[in-house]
């Protein structure tokens, strides 16, 4: 089955990103196809590579990056929500005249249309948030 995942909260404050990660992993293990994981609202904060949690805690951001690499996941960060919250890839930083970019490996920035498209293409869309 094709499954889409929507993550609406950032890392650490809410459990949403953890739940979404465990759900995504379990779905892959069960042989389902994760069509896309879309990050919206504060969920875009799951994609900053500047995250540096204590060594005895999970690294939510790199954990997503690694899962994406291992299973060719499509991790999409909403551009409008990302711009509000200071998440940028190299191109966007250039376009906006910013002196830095912080998008982690395995994520890409794109439009909200990607969320609607996931809803159209997937058999199920599961939302995690606050």
């Amino acid at each position: 089955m094709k499954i889409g995942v929507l993550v609406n909260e950032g890392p650490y404050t809410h459990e949403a990103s953890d739940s979404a990660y465990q759900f995504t992993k379990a779905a892959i293990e069960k042989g389902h196809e994760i069509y896309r994981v879309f990050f919206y609202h504060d969920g875009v904060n799951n994609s900053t590579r500047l995250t540096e949690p204590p060594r005895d805690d999970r690294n939510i951001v790199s954990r997503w990056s690694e899962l994406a690499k291992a299973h060719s996941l499509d991790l999409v960060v909403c551009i409008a929500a990302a711009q509000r919250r200071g998440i940028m890839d190299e191109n966007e930083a250039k376009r906006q005249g910013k002196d830095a970019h912080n998008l982690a490996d395995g994520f890409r920035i794109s439009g909200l249309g990607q969320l609607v498209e996931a809803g159209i293409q997937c058999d199920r869309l599961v939302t995690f948030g606050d």
Partner: protein
Amino acid sequence: MPMVEVAGKSFEVDEEGYLVNLADWDENIAGYLATEEKVDMTESHWEVVNFLREYYAEYQIAPAIRVLTKAISKKLGPDKGNNKYLYELFPYGPAKQACKIAGLPKPTGCI
């Protein structure tokens, strides 16, 4: 961000030339923004730009292109409410160029 002065009034534009403070907008500034876009403003151009400003004032968003054509068709007639007419006026895209000249916020490019 760059400051520009037109007709004795100075205002800020962003890296891509969009007006930063919507409240600064006046017809002189629109004229400047049009020149930057290489658009020669005629009455037909003003009609669309003013329509966009009215739409924004009423709904607080810039309309999607198909919504714009439909609304213009309703108000100014079907000969003006179509993509061909709007692209003739604003060759690089009415959503981008007309919104920019109208001083509306930069589209976030969501689709």
